[in-house]
């Protein structure tokens, strides 16, 4: 029961970490290059969720000052930082996908193992 409570209280953090690990697993184990790029994106999303979850305050409202009321504000800093992070992640994805296109044009496949096979054949030809 104690463990269940612990999990429920930290479900937002655990979700972020779970996504991070799923993404890492995808990057490391999958042979398909596009799936690797997807894995990177899942990893990034996990961290972004984790980061935003840090800033959340239970019962807090967005930090916009309304005269007369004095509510609890959530911390806007992590969300602001993550906006930068999202832009960076998109540009990396674009670059990686453009490389995948080039690899497909030159090797005719996007399977890691087949690419390694082709490269080894070329090396023995030399």
């Amino acid at each position, binding site marked *: 029961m104690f463990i269940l409570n612990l999990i429920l209280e930290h479900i937002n953090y655990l979700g972020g970490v779970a996504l991070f690990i799923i993404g890492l697993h995808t990057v490391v184990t999958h042979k398909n290059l596009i799936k690797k790029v997807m894995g990177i994106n899942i990893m990034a999303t996990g961290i972004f969720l984790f980061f935003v979850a840090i800033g959340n305050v239970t019962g807090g409202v967005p930090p916009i000052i309304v005269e007369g009321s004095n509510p609890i504000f959530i911390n806007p800093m992590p969300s602001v930082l993550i906006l930068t992070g999202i832009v960076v992640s998109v540009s990396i994805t674009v*670059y990686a996908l453009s490389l995948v296109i080039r*690899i497909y044009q030159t090797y005719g496949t996007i399977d890691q193992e087949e690419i390694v096979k082709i490269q080894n054949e070329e090396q023995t030809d030399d």
Partner: protein
Amino acid sequence: MIEQLPILNMLIFLMAALIIPLLNRRVFTLTLVMGFMVLLSVLISSVVLLVHVNTVGEFYYRFGNYLSFIGIEFKIDAFSTLFTTFIVGLTMLIYLYSCGDATDGISEAEYGRYYILLFILMFSIFGIIYTNDLFNAYVFMEILSLTSCSIISIKRKKENYTASFRYVMLNEVGSLSYLFGIALLYMVTGYTNMSLVFESIQEAWVVYPANIMTACGFMIVGVGIKAAIFPFHIWLPDAHSHAPSSSSAILSAIVVKVYLLLMVKVLFRAFGVDIIKALDIPVILMIIAGFGMIMGSFFALAQKDVKRMLGYSSVAQIGYILLGISFMTHIGLSAAFFHIMSHGLMKAALFLSVGAIIYYQRVRKINQFDGMGYKMPLSMIVFGLAALGMIGIPPTIGFISKLNLGLAALDRGMIIFIVIIVISGLLNAMYYLPIMISAFLKGEKVNKIAGIEKIPVVMMIPIVILGLLILVIGIYPDLIYGLIENAVNAIL
């Protein structure tokens, strides 16, 4: 006025990157001259900053004058000015060389683009070294990883695409690990500014040790992947051997070092020596460094391609630098900084001289170097000097850094690392000396040296200057040692 120089340095690089596309209908020489002027002006302003910091004192640059806990802050001290000056000076030599060699594998339409990438790369390097903010360092790190992957894939060959794809994937895993570390630190301290994190981490350490331990692990692994520290080095040989020669020199002599400098900043400025020691990080780093020094040299022994061999040799040399950092003492850190500089000079000299040989003789395999000392005497002599430096033969800069590292190991009472340094030096000798023996002693000797080879002057000047620097600083290490002492004092 002098307070504005750091940001002006970075703005000049950014402006240069924006102006180059506008010049692409003009003669290409115009772009080259402009790039040279940009690097020269940044070098001058970096030297001014270096003198200012070492005589007057360090200062902070705050963007928009926001308070440091919400704004971005640059810390201009003896550490950051020393390394920016060194890096821009080295880049200037590599840039001069690339003016003569730019045709090597890059199509003509891409010349301008290559220099755009180079200037954005310099911009992000300056950012990483100047910044005093963990998240800001992450953003610059991502710019650096994009541009450094692009200067590999700009050469339109099959292997370059796969090499840079692998590089971008591992780089991204590294950056995201680093970002995760920032998130965990932000969770317990509430800051991303390194000085403020350092102030509040002492209290947080008592309450949330698990968070700080995980953050430290993630950050070291993240930066370590990018710095090619031994078990994470798999991307390095491919990336460095397929890139154009001037890119290889930049990647191996500068980019990898920048991540190590960032690691020094994170470990000493953000976490602080006490917490790092409490977590036993120094022991882990020492073991990794020791394995890297031996294994990198072993892998290099097995290579047939000379640039691949140089790549694996970098892995071993990064082990030396990491060893110096992991001692956590004044003398160890100064040895590490000295080796960052000496390895930068030696690896640049090696890659540039090998680049000239590859470009004019079209040989890449080690067994094709017979008699090369007679065909390309100047390049081979500089290659030989730098190789002797790598082995650690006295009148070169490499001997001084190995001596310092040995003294640092003795200072901590770690005799085992002196043995490892010696073994690694012998392994270095085993793969560098055969090249020199076959270049100078084998092959047909009928045509004695008929004068130096005909390579463009812009390529010859940097090679000669690097060769001279390796010798001169090896004989008079005090020339830069005072500056390094100040840099170490700024970190510890």
